[in-house]
Each structure stands twice: as structure tokens, then as C-alpha cells.
């Protein structure tokens, strides 16, 4: 299976993951400062900043787009509980 590197810049930590992994599956295990609320894409708590590899994440769903908008997301913000990794990315808490 294709592998990808996810770098959490706030703790200078990189994890090699299979493509398709959601950021939520790894960020807590390594102690990144990305924090979670509902864990199902509804509350916007887990907004993260995608610093590198914006196009290496799955496209946001209509629901995620709506929640990002309601939470006044910036240009390179995604929800860590929704975004799936397709290639190398670097993220940090928004």
C-alpha cells in the first residue's frame, strides 16, 4: 500500500502512514496540539493548518466545507478528523 509522511510541525514529529489514514488516527498518539471535539466533522474543534502538501489530502466533503466556513477557516485549514492523507503533508494546529 502506498505510504505517505505526515509531519506535525508543532512537535517536530513525522509519522509514516498508509495512504487513506485520517490525521485524527495519529495526531493524538504522537502528542500533537491538534485537539478534538465531536470527532465526526460537526464541531470544527480539530481545525488544522496544512503547511505543506495541500493537494495531498482528500477533497473536503460538502459537510466539511460547510463546517470550515461556519468556523471562519483560513485558506489552508482542514478538519483533522475528516482529511485523509494521500501523500506527504505537514500540518500544525490552526
Amino acid at each position, binding site marked *: 500500500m502506498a505510504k505517505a509522511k505526515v509531519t506535525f510541525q508543532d*512537535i517536530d514529529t513525522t509519522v*509514516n502512514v*498508509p495512504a487513506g489514514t485520517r490525521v485524527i*488516527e*495519529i495526531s493524538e498518539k*504522537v*502528542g500533537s496540539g491538534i485537539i*478534538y471535539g465531536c470527532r465526526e466533522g460537526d464541531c470544527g474543534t480539530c481545525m488544522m493548518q496544512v503547511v505543506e502538501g495541500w493537494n495531498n489530502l482528500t477533497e473536503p466533503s460538502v459537510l466539511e466545507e460547510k463546517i470550515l466556513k*461556519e468556523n471562519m477557516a483560513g485558506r489552508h485549514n482542514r478538519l483533522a478528523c475528516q482529511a485523509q492523507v494521500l501523500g506527504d503533508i505537514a500540518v500544525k494546529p490552526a
Partner: protein
Amino acid sequence: MNSRDDLTTPGKAVEVAPGVHWIGAMDPDLRTFDIILKTANGTTYNSYLVRGDDGVAVIDTVKAGFQGEFFARLESVADYSEIRTIVLNHLEPDHSGALPELMRRAPQASLYISKRATSMLKALLKPNQGGFEYQRADTGDRIELGGRTLRFLHTPFLHWPDTQCTYLEEEGVLFSGDIFGCHYCDSRLFNDRAGDFRFSFDYYYAHIMRPFKSHVREALALIGPLKLNLVAPAHGPVLRDRPRRYVNRYRELSAPSIDAEMGEDERSFLIFYMSSYGNTARMAESVADGAESVAGVRISLYDLEGGEVEPFADLIEEADALAFGSPTINGDAVKPVWDLLSSLTVIDLRGKVGAAFGSYGWSGEAVSMVEDRLRGLKLRVPVQGKRIKLVPTEDELEECRSFGRQVAQALVGEGGASRVFDMADLG
């Protein structure tokens, strides 16, 4: 209810400023609000009506069971056909309960809610299928009522994501929603005539607004420059006598309390523990020793057996990192630890560093259970918890020092070298 000098005759509106009427409802018998809040004086659901040359605006409604009282007061000062605008500063059911019926009686009116309120409106009014049309309001948006201007202030998370304030520019009246409110029912209505509600005001802040202190400060930055002749909250007395005092009180309550105590470059790291045979206590002391060795971190060590939850919660609010030491007894962390960890909902813990450690006899679940709780409370848990079987050796205490040092380093951002893992190794 305090009933002397009653201004709130049934079926009558009360003028609180020129052309501005209180049309709310009294709930004197309420003793518990929203499960979590006590009130010795009931509460009020405040709604207001603003009359302009070109029509009328209604600001907030009341809890569903009180809509008869609300409509009777409204009808005493306006006809439904005059209502052009309905504003909901906050969608919680105690303010939106009469909205469906009000929209039915005034179908021509435009509904204004904050830009964060749209999904809540739909969820709250699910039984009213078909829904309502609404306008999304943001800071600076205005509505002209003919010689009267309503201006919106976006004040999210006070105390729901949707909350906003509405300001009547010509009269200097701030319709503040739950901000500056309290659960206190007094038919004398105004702050200079009602009984002593200072306790209720502070209590309401402590339970409703305190978890959102940073948002309180942002809202005060918007409210601060306004000319304020009257603050009209959604609960409790209408603040007409020196309303600025209540703004200042919020400023005091939302300010950090130990700013001056901690140095500017210093981070506060609190270590709480509970120990039955002294093993977790010895671990705690070693964790503290290790953490102390990191420059810029000030350590405080507390035995939970010797303290009460509430003052500890106050300390935790101002701290930057927290570690909890608990033995494992019958497969769980001990009750004083859970008592403290279940009493932190009024505090903003987001992003603080958390850690757990403890001695155990055979299974040792406490540490991972506490870590999960810390994550649930939105703390960051950067270092895997430390467990030691029964009595720690000197080598194991050294491991505890190293653990404390690592947590403190994570707190000050000294992560050391970059780390690389495979997902399969993360457990």
C-alpha cells in the same frame, strides 16, 4: 419572587428606554436552570421591542411555556403587522421558544441570527419542518427601523457558538443576550430597584461565561468603545444605573489572576497525586524533580488528599501543564482524581499540556484512563504516561525524573531532535 413595587403588571410592557419596551416573562419558581445552575430567585426571560418610524423590531423571545405572557406584553405596545424585524441574539430554547409562534403571527418579519447560528436554528426547530428564512448577521451589519438603527456585534461562544449582541445606536442600548445576565427574578426589573443580585451575577458568569474567558475578552473589546446608557440582558435585571460597572466586572472576572505571580517567561506546571502506600507519591516527587530541571518551568506539587476540588480547579485554569498521579485500584484511577477531572468543565483547558503517571499492582489501567480523559478535555498529551509496578527502585525513580523532564520540555518547546515513527509502532 421579589414582588414589592411591581413594575411587571401582567399583560403590560415596561418602557426601559425611549421607544424600547421589555416584553419578557417572569419565572419565579425555577430553582434549577439547565441542570447545572441553581437559582434562589427564579429567573426572567427578557425580550425587548424597539419601535422605529418604519416599524418594530423584537429582540429575543422567551421559553416556550411562557409565550402567553410574552405575547400579551407584546400586544400591549405593538400590532403583529408592525413587526419588520426579529432578532435572536442566542438560540437556546429559553430565548427561541416562542419564535415559531411569533413567526407565524408576524410572517412578514425578517429573522436575523448570527452567522454561526444557522445549523443550530435548523436543529432546534426540526419539528417546524419547512423552516424559516433568515438573514445572517455579522459585526457591523445594521438594520434601519426609521430613525432607529440596530447594529450587530458578533460575540461567539458567550456561551454558545451562535451568540451575538445587538446595539441600538441612537439610545446607547446594548441588547447583550446572555452576556451580563443572571438568574434573578425581580418584578422591580431594574438594577437600581431590584434586590441584591451581585451573587447571582458573579455565579452566572462563573458557570456560563468562565469556560470562554478569551471570548469574553474579545467581546469586551467590541463592547468597550460603545456609549452605554442601558444594558438589556436576556436574563435578570435590566442594567440602567451605571451599566458600565457590569462591563468592568466582566473585565475583572475574565482577567488572569496570577499573571503577576508568574514571571513573563515562566510556565506553570502543576502535579497532582494520590497515593495509598507512598509509591505514587515518590513517583510524583521524582517527576517534579525532573521537571524542575528545565529552565522556565515552575513546579507545584499537590497531594489530592489534602485539598478540595474547587481551589484546585482555580489553579488549573491558570496553569500551563498538568500531571496527575494515580495508583490503579480495582482497575481504575482513584476517585479523588476523577472528582477533580470531572470538575473542570467551567475551565478552558484547550491546548494545555497533560500527563499521567502512577504505581500499580498487577494491571495498571489508571494511567491510560487518565490520559484518555485529559485528551477528552482537549489537553495535549505529548509524553506517554509512566507506570511502575508497586515499589519504585532508584532506577525507576530516575525514569520518573526523565518523564517529568520530557513533559516540561514539551511545555517550553524543547522537543529535542526531530522524531520519525511508523504508524504501526504507535500502538
